[in-house]
């Protein structure tokens, strides 16, 4: 009888185990961003503008953008509160901050969305509350905003591809040479990043020689600096890689470090933004590095200026304003317009 009992228990256990699903918890823990804090002196009776940036700490790009916003607030006499995430993957922090801005009866919200898709619903909510919404740097997948000041990232990606082709040719790579181009993106869910990638590939497919191949293993570092460096080292280890394209600051810094670490002066590198590591390599005669710079100071300044105007009834004609980009390399770095932009970086 004991054996029969054991047999039945065995069957029940088999059925139970078969029904158990293997559930994995792969959520990445990111520290939530801080609450809003004043960017300017706060005075009674002035309009309160809430600025939400993608990365609130240790990021020169967003520091420059906040400088622009602060300078505008000082000249237009308004209060600006600011906050953002600690990592660009943390769109939930921005969602929370948008809710906080509604509760605080904001006179205007200026935001650069971490995630164009996931934040669209909350941006709708703010706009439908009657609060002017100005998008800067990145758009969102909704019509419910007043105006967007950003780089046309599809076009910026095309310019990056154009620069890559030019620099490879300058570096002596012939049209029939079989080479590979490695790509690393920072955040696969960011529309900014994806549009730059799309623009790059669009231009590349039309203008690059057929023997210059894009590596299909496009790496995504998800905003993590250590991953960006690790993937950069991996790509540089491939013997046919002669060109590198990165879509934003995180992977750009990763590759700048990796190129320096490995003294890869044979690589043509085109990235975005002007972090210290990238500035270092662009200014180094031995390397072939170019960077695409946005006008983030202008975005911060114009964003605050515009949201104040809208809150006072200014009519907006176009919803999208391309702020344009400049290509910085050894040949262009001393041009006056680029020097002016670099002053803010």
């Amino acid at each position: 009888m004991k054996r029969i009992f054991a047999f039945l228990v065995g069957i029940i256990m088999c059925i139970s185990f078969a029904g158990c699903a293997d559930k994995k918890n792969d959520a990445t823990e990111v520290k939530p961003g801080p609450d809003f804090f004043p960017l300017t002196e706060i005075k009674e009776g002035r309009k309160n503008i809430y600025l939400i940036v993608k990365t609130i700490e240790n990021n020169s790009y967003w520091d420059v953008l906040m400088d622009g916003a602060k300078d505008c607030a000082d000249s237009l006499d308004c209060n600006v509160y600011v906050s953002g995430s600690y990592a660009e993957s943390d769109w939930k922090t921005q969602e929370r901050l948008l809710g906080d801005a509604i509760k605080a009866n904001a006179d205007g919200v200026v935001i650069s969305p971490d995630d164009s898709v996931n934040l669209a619903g909350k941006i709708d909510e703010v706009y439908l509350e009657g609060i002017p919404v100005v998008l800067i740097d990145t758009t969102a997948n909704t019509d419910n905003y007043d105006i967007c000041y950003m780089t046309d990232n599809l076009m910026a990606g095309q310019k990056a591809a154009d620069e890559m082709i030019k620099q490879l040719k300058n570096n002596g790579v012939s049209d029939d040479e079989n080479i590979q181009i490695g790509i690393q993106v920072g955040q696969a869910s960011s529309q900014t990043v994806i549009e730059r990638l799309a623009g790059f590939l669009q231009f590349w497919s039309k203008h690059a020689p057929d023997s210059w191949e894009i590596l299909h293993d496009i790496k995504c570092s998800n905003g993590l600096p250590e991953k960006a460096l690790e993937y950069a080292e991996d790509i540089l280890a491939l013997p046919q890689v002669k060109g590198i394209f990165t879509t934003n600051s995180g992977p750009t810094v990763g590759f700048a470090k990796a190129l320096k670490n490995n003294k890869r002066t044979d690589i043509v590198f085109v990235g975005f933004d002007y972090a210290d590591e990238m500035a270092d390599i662009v200014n180094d005669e031995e390397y072939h590095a170019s960077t695409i710079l946005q006008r983030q100071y202008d975005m911060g300044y114009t964003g605050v200026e515009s949201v104040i105007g809208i809150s006072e009834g200014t009519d907006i004609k176009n919803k999208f304003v391309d702020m344009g980009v400049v290509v910085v390399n050894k040949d262009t770095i001393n041009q006056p317009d680029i020097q002016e932009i670099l002053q803010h970086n």
Partner: protein
Amino acid sequence: MTKKQNKDFTHEIARNLSFFKMLVIYFIVCLIGVAFLLLNFNSLIVNHDKKLTGEICSLVTEKMNDSISYMTNSAENMSAALSAQNHNDLQKLYDELSLSKKGSGYMSIGFVDENQKIYASETEIEEFEKWELLEIAKQAEPVSISAPYRSGMTGQPVYTMFADFTYDNGKNGYLFLTYPLKEIQNMAYTDSLSEDTEIWLMEADSDNIIQCAGSDNYSIGSWNNAILAMQAQIDNDYQADYAEWKAHMTAGEDTAGITYEIGKKTYTQVYAKIDFMHGWYVVVRIPSRSLSAAIQQFRTSVLMFLGILFVATVIMFVMSHIRETEEKKILENLSIHDPLTSLLNRRAFDYTSSQYLKKSTKNEACLLFIDVDYFKQVNDRFGHDAGDRILVEFSSALNELFNENSYISRYGGDEFVVLVRSADKSEISLKLDKLQKMAGKIKPCDEPEIYGDFVLTFSCGAATFPFDAADVKSLQSAADEALYIVKERGRNGYEWYNNDIQN
């Protein structure tokens, strides 16, 4: 009859396949059956899904292409009408048409003359230069469509359609109509499966995709790249299939389909070429589960039914086995035991003792042949009940003395045979002496005035194995011979074979 004796005997008569083994085999057969059923069912579902999703994908792509063709036909008709009107002032025509554009589906209308002068708003003229739209216009034979780009006026993705036309007595120009990408999204919308159907426009050369329909409304109109959004997500086993599917597209073939898995989800994906939009394709993807949900529910019901059936069968088997075991125990008792004394009967004794001796060639044993003296007279004098009492009490005495290491049987009416698993004559003789004393105390009834001077005695012949005989029959013959000597001598005693007379 001891438990040991029972066990030895029943083990020998038990079947080779125990109930437990049979249950395990039944379980394995059921498992194989269910596995076979599941494999067949799953294969049926997969084939059904592949076929059906493939057909639906093809229908959706066809619908998209038809809708785009409808739009291009409209543009062609409009350009034909304008050509027929032979306008000579494009600026005037542009002013008139741009004012009446509302409600026509497109968001703006304009012209390009033979000198490539653009009749459009300032923002649009900038966009012509930025996106090299004049190059697309030149491809209009009779129609061409640009890749989607972001409109400065709305901030949303748009595309521009060009149609060639003539004006001012045969001059060649182009009519253009700019549509929001949402127009294509509206074409892509289907009531059924709207949650599950994903539709993209895809450029073959760059792998860029733009989502036109999907479960998340906010992702519609967004750019992505198929290398990241599709290829990188697909399970490794299907990468080669995907590469082949993509190769068909790159080669410019009109349509191709693929089935692949992402995680545990199966998708069917089909592309179709878009006429007049050079290098662009409509891609439709549907997860298989959305179609097979009903069949899967049926499969779950069948499995549940089979599970219940299996458990019920096992319970029935177990209950039937328990009842059968109990009945068998009763029957076994009846077949191997003497009903009066509960000792082994002759058949059981012969079997067990011969089996024991066969297996115990290295061991020693002793066979005792015992007759109750003058038992017939007991029956005649005191009746059969008294005779039965004598036999029962004598059996108890045998049990008490030889219980361990012995097979005890009632061999005939007053005959008892004992196989002792030892050939120690002195020890066995001591027990026989004790038996004589115990037999002397057995009375046919409780009343002394009835049984009077009655004294029960027995005669016993003994032989040892393997010294006196090498098998049971010979051993019995030897013991019988010794018994005969005792009887000849006047009974009430025992004798060892080979003239070793003890009493």
